């Protein structure tokens, strides 16, 4: 059988099968050889390692002829089932210990063999000298059973063989299938070529099976068919497209035969002139007659000039429709010339431009408004290029429209405001209107402040196509604001300075009172003490007059001491931070009434205490208020046989006031304004003792609580003190 004449299909199968068989045989052969080699090496390494460990451990057993220890070491080999025999030989060649110990002595080699290993049928034998240091102590013998491992190799070989047969079968199936990939496309191509040549149908396509050479061959063939078809279709489409375009753009076409003077119109042109087909007789003069009288001469002149100068014919004119309305039309045309250069025909198109004309008029009005504005109105496209620049902008920035238009808008933006400009432009492009105040730079490099409005410019579809920037100079306002800020800062500094001065003064005052409280009281104590000692010393020998002097001295000292205490208290109240706590005023009043008991024990006082509110205030300071006011009430009712002291609450306007009323001696309201001043007293000291500091202290405390205190009194009728505290409201 000559291979040359075998069909392509069969040839392909042969080639594939032969190649796969050779490759598989080589691969599996190498694999099995390598596996066998590795297997031997691994076993040998393992066995050698075990032998070395056993040998290292059995030196002393051999040195000291201890068969028990030897057997014990060998018995450890139970963990390694592949080792079937082991033996330790002494120096003289006799056996010290065997493993397994029940194995008959004769099964082991009678004498130790030479050092090394030997593969035998299904077994590996190893002889290893046992050394302690350099000294030879005996020999170790190991025998490994390789049967289970060899049987695994045989199984492995079997699997490889099976896989090989399977692989060959798959290769056969694959080769049968793959060869189709080559033979089928060729057949298909032949079919298609026949179909095209018979039917002249260029839409037929050969089926493509892949991207190989056959695939690209199919592609080229199909591409060729497609090109033929496309050219055929393009010709027809081009005519159709022209018709559709003219129709869609509402364009009319005309053709003027210069020699015969006949002007031919298409259907649409009739529409543009507001006439029906057949109304127009084709004469150029009739056409001119349809135009606005003012435009006739111009159109005629333009047509003649185009023919004479061989230029384009371009004309805009008004047409009078039969309904008496005027329409703007624009025409454009080219002449065709004969070989001698004489014009033969003028062909062209005509458009209705009425809407555009009207729009242009509206725009010029807007433009006039823009240009007359005092504000700078600048138009930019979406890339920030200046596209319009009004007179206001020229005045404000110093650039003429010529200089500005076409530049980037950064022309008038200082470098430190670039980011701001970019961000504002981005937001405007999203359709937002942006107002902000910023700095701009003039042509002469000077800076000034502007208030800017950025708004999007939209086209008829509502898409943003640009940005309009309206800027107003606000430098004057900014300057004014700056001045106010400076003034404020100065003021603030002055306040800080004052506060510091005040704090210093306060500190001095505190140091002063500290010293006073120590140093002013000490001499008073000494005076009192020595006066008393003097009195004791003199005892019976002192005259009653002298005794009274001493008593006066001592009373004066007591008053002085009281005064010092009161003043210190007043000054302390002026300096403390108040600590607000929820306080029940009734319990404060009860405490004070109890504290004052020694002062009124011998008297008859009718206490009338109403329910009082509970509120956030400094309990210690509020207690001082009640101590002062209640002890005053007790003091000034001293002359009354039956004293009445009322404590209660009263609504005053929108506030709630606490009042303390007594039926004591009262005073003339004429002096009411003096009452709360320091050292101000309305009674003589011999009538009612006191330092004149108590009410000043009370007022200070009430002020600290952001409240008010006032008094109502009548001479001989008693007095009522009212006070309010912040956060005290009618229930």
């Amino acid at each position: 059988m000559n291979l040359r004449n075998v069909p392509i299909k069969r040839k392909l199968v042969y080639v594939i099968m032969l190649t796969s068989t050779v490759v598989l045989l080589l691969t599996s052969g190498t694999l099995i050889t390598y596996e066998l080699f590795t297997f031997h090496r691994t076993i040998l390494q393992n066995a050698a390692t075990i032998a070395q460990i056993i040998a290292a451990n059995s030196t002393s057993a051999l040195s000291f002829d201890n068969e028990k220890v030897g057997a014990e070491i060998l018995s450890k080999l139970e963990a390694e089932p592949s080792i079937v025999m082991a033996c330790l030989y002494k120096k003289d060649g006799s056996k010290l210990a065997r493993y397994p110990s029940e194995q008959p002595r004769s099964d082991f080699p009678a004498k130790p063999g030479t050092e090394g290993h030997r593969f035998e049928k299904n077994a590996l034998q190893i002889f290893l000298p046992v050394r302690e240091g350099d000294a030879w102590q005996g020999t170790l013998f190991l025998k490994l059973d390789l049967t289970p491992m060899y049987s695994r190799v045989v199984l492995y070989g079997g699997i490889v063989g099976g896989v090989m047969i399977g692989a060959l079968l798959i290769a056969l199936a694959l080769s049968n299938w793959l060869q189709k990939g080559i033979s089928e496309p060729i057949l298909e191509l032949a079919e298609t070529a026949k179909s095209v040549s018979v039917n002249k149908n260029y839409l037929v396509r050969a089926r493509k099976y892949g991207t190989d050479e056959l695939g690209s061959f199919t592609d080229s063939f199909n591409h060729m068919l497609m090109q033929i078809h496309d050219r055929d279709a393009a010709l027809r489409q081009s005519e159709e497209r022209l018709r559709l375009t003219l129709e869609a753009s509402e364009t009319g076409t005309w053709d003027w035969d210069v020699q015969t003077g006949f002007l031919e119109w298409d259907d649409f042109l009739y529409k543009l002139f507001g006439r029906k087909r057949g109304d127009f007789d084709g004469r150029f003069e009739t056409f001119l007659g349809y135009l606005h009288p003012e435009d006739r001469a111009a159109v005629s002149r333009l047509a003649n000039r185009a023919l004479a100068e061989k230029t384009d014919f371009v004309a805009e004119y008004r047409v009078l429709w039969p309904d008496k309305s005027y329409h703007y039309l624009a025409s454009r045309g080219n002449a065709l010339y004969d070989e001698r250069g004489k014009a033969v025909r003028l062909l062209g198109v005509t458009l209705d431009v009425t809407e555009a004309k009207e729009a242009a008029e509206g725009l010029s009005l807007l433009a006039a408004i823009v240009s007359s504005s005092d504000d700078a109105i600048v138009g930019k496209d979406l890339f920030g290029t200046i596209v319009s620049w009004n007179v206001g902008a020229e005045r404000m920035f110093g650039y003429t429209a010529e200089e500005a238009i076409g530049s980037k808008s950064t022309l008038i933006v200082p470098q430190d405001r670039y980011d701001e400009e970019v961000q504002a432009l981005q937001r405007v492009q999203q359709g937002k209107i942006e107002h902000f105040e910023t700095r701009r730079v003039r042509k002469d490099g000077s800076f000034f402040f502007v208030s800017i409005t950025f708004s999007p410019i939209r086209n008829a579809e509502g898409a943003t196509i640009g940005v309009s920037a309206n800027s107003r100079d606000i430098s004057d306002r900014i300057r004014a604001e700056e001045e106010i800020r400076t003034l404020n800062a100065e003021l603030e500094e002055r306040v800080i300075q004052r506060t510091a001065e005040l704090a210093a003064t306060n500190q001095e005052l505190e140091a002063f009172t500290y010293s006073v409280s120590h140093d002013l009281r000490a001499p008073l104590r000494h005076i009192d003490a020595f006066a008393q000692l003097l009195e004791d010393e003199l005892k019976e020998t002192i005259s009653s007059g002298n005794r009274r002097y001493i008593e006066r001295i001592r009373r004066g000292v007591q008053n002085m001491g009281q005064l010092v205490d009161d003043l210190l208290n007043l000054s302390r109240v002026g300096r403390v931070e108040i600590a607000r706590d929820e306080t029940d005023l009734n319990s404060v009043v009860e405490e004070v009434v109890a504290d004052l008991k020694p002062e009124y024990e011998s008297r008859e006082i009718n206490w009338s205490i109403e329910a009082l509110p509970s509120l956030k205030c400094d309990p210690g300071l509020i207690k001082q208020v009640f101590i002062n006011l209640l002890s005053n009430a007790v003091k000034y009712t001293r002359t009354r046989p039956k004293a009445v002291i009322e404590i209660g609450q009263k609504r005053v306007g929108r506030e709630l006031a606490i009042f303390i009323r007594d039926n004591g001696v009262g005073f003339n309201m004429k002096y009411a304004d003096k009452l709360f001043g320091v050292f101000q007293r309305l009674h003589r000291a011999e009538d009612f003792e006191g330092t004149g500091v108590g009410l000043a202290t009370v007022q200070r405390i009430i002020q600290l609580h952001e409240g008010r205190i006032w008094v109502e009194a009548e001479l001989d009728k008693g007095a009522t003190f009212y006070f309010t505290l912040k956060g005290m409201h009618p229930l």
Partner: protein
Amino acid sequence: MVVLKQSNRLDLRQLQITILYWRILMVVLLWMGFGATARAQETAPEYKIKAVYLYNFVQYVNWPSNAFVEARSPIVIGILGNDPFGKTLNETVEGEVVKNRKLEIRYFKSVNEIKDCHVLFVGASEKDRVRSILAAMKERSILTVSDIDNFTLQGGIIRFFTADNKIRLRINLEAAKTANLGISSKLLQVAVVVSTDPSLQ
């Protein structure tokens, strides 16, 4: 003489047999004679083994470096008192090098003679002086060996004893530690470890 007389008359074969008998007789006589002379000086087989063991100990024991005068000083095996080894010990040790050191054998009559020594075998003649000998050796890095009864209990490091016809070892680890000697765990593997502390016995 009768035989000789007869030989003159007997055939050649008979003569050959006779010569063979003579030879055998002579060999037997020679063997007996040599054996007898040898036995007089020959070591007991037990001590042949013990000699080898003495040599083996050197391989399983580590001496501190200060136990040697120089880096290449020999390891000295000393015999105190009567010497049961005869030539065997010399034969065993001759030409051997252990831990890069040569081995040397010295014989001491009394404790006072012991200067440079690493392994000391205490002969049976010293049986009654064991305590004083060990006291003198205490804390010196000397591996004391003997087969005297209770040697390890009195502070000796290794004692030979016999069990099941085999020579076995008893080792007193505390004594070894006191002597600053490192005993290989392999040696302990084939020995019975005992303690001086009677409560542990």
